[in-house]
């Protein structure tokens, strides 16, 4: 059972639905504002943070980067580059806990990310 909080700013409801579909009963999802979501992760109330915005790093990861540091965060998809399944697996394996991506790439990123987090 892992706990994922959705911060960022775009498509929160759609991301929530998608994670529930992908993770089923293995995942507990909550939706918060970006600041509260990061605080929840910092206070260890949740295990992972995901967020989407236009750039995959601005609204999606800004607060996470500021409060958790760059070592814990990674942009999985930016407007010019979407990471593939192997790259996402590698990021998860390296211990990242906050993930940002662009809204249009949500589906392809989450399809790789959620199983990767579950098998970790």
């Amino acid at each position: 059972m892992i706990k994922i909080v959705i911060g960022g700013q775009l498509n929160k409801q759609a991301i929530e639905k998608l994670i529930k579909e992908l993770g089923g009963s293995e995942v507990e999802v909550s939706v918060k504002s970006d600041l509260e979501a990061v605080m929840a992760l910092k206070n260890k109330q949740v295990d992972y943070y995901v967020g989407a915005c236009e750039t995959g790093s601005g609204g999606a990861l800004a607060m996470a980067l500021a409060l958790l540091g760059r070592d814990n965060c990674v942009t999985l998809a930016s407007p010019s580059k979407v990471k593939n399944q192997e790259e996402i697996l590698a990021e998860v394996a390296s211990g990242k806990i906050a993930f940002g991506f662009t809204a249009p790439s949500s589906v392809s990123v989450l399809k790789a990310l959620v199983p990767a987090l579950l098998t970790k």
Partner: protein
Amino acid sequence: MDFSIIQLITIAALGSMGSILVNRGVAVFNDGLRPIVPEFLEGRITRKELAATSFALSFGLIIGFGIPLSIGATIIIAHSILLACDIIGIWSPDNKKGIIISGVVGAVYSIGVCLGLQFVVDLFDKLPINFLDSLSLVGTPIIIAFTVFPAVAVGYQHGFKKAVATASITFISYLLFARFGTFTISSYKIALSPEGMSLLFGMFMMVYFAVRVKGGNETTNSDLVNIFTERVNRIKKNRWLLAIMGGLVALVSAQMILAVDAMPQALINDGKYSEAAIATLARAIGFIPLVFSTAIVTGVYGLAGTTMVFVIGIIFREMPIVAFVVGAIVMYGEVMLLSVVTKSMDKLPGVREMGEHIRTSLADVLGMAILIGSAMAAEKIAPGMGFFWVMGFYLLNRLAKKPLVELAVGPVGVIALGILVNILHLFGLWSK
């Protein structure tokens, strides 16, 4: 798009000043880059890593969003210049020489963008099949569609029923002002624009619903301000530099060189200035929480602040010098009010959240409007094939390894189609 010498001088001043502020780590435009800057300032990453990140974050948006949406428009999207300031400032060395280098490169680049866009337009104008007139159709849906964004934002935040209520009021006020908005009071003819007024009503509803959300005893924002006092002071220390930058942004906005986003850009293209001012204001309200909170935790401000200075520019477009002064005052005020406003968000959690929903709703409305506009433009260029082209372009882009920014897919597709029909024409495969 023809630039006067004065306009080229001010845009050079803006590009120069912006790049220098980035070079000194005072401010950056990209909200995503802001949190990385202190990592460098405090020695956790090298200048090289910072430079690579700045390039990765901003380059795609410049060539995939700012520039293509500015081709053939009367006013350039600010990202084309301000995101480049991020890259130029950070790539220049971190010393006295770097200040000069970033200033010079920033100025040359900004003039280059203006002249480059002018050159591209002149070039397209010479093509046997002219598609520039059709290209202007891209912005048409935005001119009406933007008034629906408060209703969509209300829907994301408060649910379907309140969204329908807001949409209905927006719609009814549009009808009323379209029918009765022009009247005469003691020989003065007054014309209230239906788009502007209905947007104002929609925004009023949006703010009303947001203010009514009761806050608990949350102190998240106050905590942030307290933890990061030093970083807030760092921004305040740079208030004069930031004020000058704010003045310059207001000035280029007043001179109709830069618009903050595609929505005000389309409205200005159509000569709807007061609507553009209202739309820019609405956008700025959406960005205040994001810009303020990232500024507080990083000690690095935004090159255009909350982007409120763009509104000042549009309002004082007849008086550029006043725009500069008021813009500087507004930017100064933003910096000084940083802590107070952020702390007050604890009491108004609905307003902080509203920011997120405004940004989502703007992106959604804009995305759809530009896509439809692009399809219309493409259909005008190549009747029968236009819809096929733009929809195919849009959906296939999603599958691409290095996709374009969705907002830019339509316009890029239209330009590509315009060039393609000219090439086909060259080989006798396309008749006018």
